[in-house]
């Protein structure tokens, strides 16, 4: 429980979860709190330290999520996710990941994505769902039942609105604007417009003095893609020189464009390893220039190495016999920045006999494991995501099928090989004990080969013996 000062009074500024259940509220005088809950622990509030911590959190979000991040005091962050969500697997997954990572470090967070800062602010604070993505264009409908406190207006205005009988944002939106402005001033009207997205609201991005930044201010606004590309190249050269002085390589670069209408556009690129190669960085940045809308022109370009790591120089291969391994980091960066990190991977073997568990995805530049799958038995080229049931005619107990019907086509089996018995991994779960499969490789009259299995164990009739599935296609 934190105690702050409001003039001469000492009031509560933050309350823990158990204390809240005991009836304590933010804004309550300290004496009343002591009367309600004797012996409660209090700490003096430190707004400056809070602001500093929020700044640190904003910097972390800047380095990990999106190029435009600003603290929204006293307790929020605002992140412009335009063009950044696809690198984290979409908006919903990015938001869930953000909230989970914060809660892992002991911060209870709620998050929302909406068309405008105002709508996201209200949705994050007052919707029941701690993580929500408001569909584009529908923000007004979702936000209108929320209380007026979500409007980012001073507490006196909230109290005034309550006195007049307005409780939700929707109530305020439907009434004529002029009387409200007369009573509460222009701020309320502006917040309502900002919430609906009818007037723009630029986010003033956080910049840390420790980050390496280069900036180009134009006398005359620029707009042509070729011009942007040319100045980008110049900025990258300056940045690489600055990084070289500090012995750093960039892991993440943000290129911000300040437009003449005071709005911001950003490009973010990431690299798999610390990089200071001008050509590679210019290539990555210019690849994404097409996503920038220069509007009436760009006044300032800002290039920041948001995440930089020490760059260790490596000895080039000097042996004349040893063939030089091609460096794929550049290619990996280009593809990852285009389609997202989760979509570029290697497949590594897992020690499991169950086919669908016998592989896992690993990052593209992870070191070579040198392992492979055992090749005693042939494996199909295509594995169906889930085995599809087939109708089969087969002799019991152990004969391969004589014919089977898959996706409405009946096929006669000419040749077959099997069974290959695969037991469930009984040491993992009890249900796996009965999961036995007998795999057959069969060839039909046309020469096509399929991977069929019969599930179940003849000793345990309950496990569903004799159901046949098609699991893969050889050729």
């Amino acid at each position, binding site marked *: 429980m934190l105690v702050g000062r409001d003039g001469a009074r000492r009031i509560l500024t933050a309350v823990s979860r158990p204390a809240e259940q005991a009836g304590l509220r933010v804004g309550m005088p300290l004496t009343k709190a002591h009367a309600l809950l004797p012996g409660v622990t209090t700490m003096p509030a430190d707004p400056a330290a809070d602001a500093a911590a929020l700044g640190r959190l904003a910097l972390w979000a800047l380095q990990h999520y999106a190029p435009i991040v600003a603290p929204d005091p006293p307790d929020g962050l605002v992140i412009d996710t335009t063009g950044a969500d696809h690198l984290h697997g979409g908006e919903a997954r990015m938001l869930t990941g953000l909230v989970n990572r914060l809660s892992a470090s002991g911060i209870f967070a709620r998050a929302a994505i909406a068309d405008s800062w105002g709508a996201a602010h209200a949705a994050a604070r007052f919707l029941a769902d701690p993580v929500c993505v408001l569909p584009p264009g529908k923000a007004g409908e979702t936000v209108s039942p929320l209380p007026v406190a979500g409007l980012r207006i001073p507490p006196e205005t909230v109290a005034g609105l309550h006195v007049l009988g307005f409780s939700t944002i929707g109530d305020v939106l439907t009434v004529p604007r002029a009387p409200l402005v007369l009573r509460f001033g222009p701020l309320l009207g502006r917040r309502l417009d900002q919430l609906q997205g009818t007037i723009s609201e630029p986010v003033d991005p956080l910049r840390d003095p420790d980050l390496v930044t280069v900036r180009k201010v134009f006398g005359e606004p620029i707009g042509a893609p070729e011009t942007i590309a040319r100045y980008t190249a110049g900025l990258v050269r300056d940045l690489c020189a600055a990084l070289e002085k500090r012995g750093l390589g960039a892991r993440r670069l943000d290129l911000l464009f300040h437009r003449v209408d005071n709005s911001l556009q950003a490009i973010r690129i990431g690299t798999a390893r610390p990089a200071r190669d001008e050509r590679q960085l210019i290539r990555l940045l210019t690849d994404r220039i097409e996503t920038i809308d220069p509007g009436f022109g760009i006044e300032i370009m800002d290039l920041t190495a948001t995440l930089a790591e020490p760059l260790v120089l490596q000895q080039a291969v000097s042996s004349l016999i040893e063939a030089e391994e091609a460096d794929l980091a550049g290619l990996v960066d280009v593809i990852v920045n285009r389609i997202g990190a989760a979509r570029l991977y290697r497949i590594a073997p897992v020690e499991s006999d169950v086919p669908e568990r016998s592989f896992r995805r690993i990052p593209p530049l992870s070191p070579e494991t040198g392992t492979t799958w055992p090749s005693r038995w042939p494996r199909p080229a295509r594995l169906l995501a889930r085995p599809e049931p087939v109708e089969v005619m087969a002799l019991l107990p152990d004969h391969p099928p004589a014919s089977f019907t898959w996706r409405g086509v009946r096929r006669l089996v000419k*040749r077959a090989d099997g069974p290959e018995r695969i037991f469930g991994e009984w040491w993992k779960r009890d249900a796996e004990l009965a999961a036995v499969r007998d795999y057959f490789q069969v060839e039909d009259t046309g020469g096509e080969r399929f991977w069929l299995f019969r599930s179940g164990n003849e000793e345990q009739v309950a496990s569903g013996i004799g159901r046949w599935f098609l699991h893969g296609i050889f050729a």
Partner: protein
Amino acid sequence: MSFSREPAKPMSASVHAVVADLRDRIRQFDGRAQRDRAVLPFGVPEIDARLPGGGLALASLHEICGGGNDAVEASAAMLFAAGIAARTKGQVLWCLTRCDLFAPALAQAGLAPGRVLYVEAGDEKSLLLCFEEGLRHGGLGAVVAEVARLSMTASRRLQLAAEAGGTLGLALRRFRHRKEADALAQPSAAVTRWRVHVRPSAPLPVPGIGRAQWLLELARCRAGEAADFDVEATDAEGRIAFSSRLADRSPAAGARRIGAAAG
């Protein structure tokens, strides 16, 4: 489809020299350097003899599709592509849109898991971009992409990228539906176009399944003739073998027989 093959007319040595000289000059117009003429032989003399230069041209685009019922899954075509990629040097980039590929099968075709980088592109457009990017990079051994549509323009771009990067590109044509499946009907800038049909395998003296048999149809070959080959599927090192059934016959006769049967 129909096939017609005329017996090759005998040419005198001087005509040969003139033709070779003309080819060289055309190549210089194209701007392709000497190193781009490196080839990857199949190691099967009957097939290599049909391909200009004695193998698959390395710095170029090749197209492979499945024939008949295999057009949708293209699993035989995939193994054929894996076998070719396995015999190149260096890493292989494999671009997909649907991830039903079973990696152990690639390992059994000679492509170890440590050599393959997978790209799972969301749509055809980004798939083609990644394909082109991989070809241009130049450090990869081969780039394989499972594409459904490949327009003339796109294939021309890819061919130029393959020439620029000196990388072998394999466009594995995969279709959503069987109806749209005649892949090789549209023109393409690929240097060779292959169709892989599965065929019933030879009976074994014991119960079981032998090595898979393919009918490999070379539907188009720049500066070469179309041909059919009866082959055995890729082995653990990615090699195909000429079918043992034809061991006592000349390959040309075998090819013609199958051509007539397919027509």
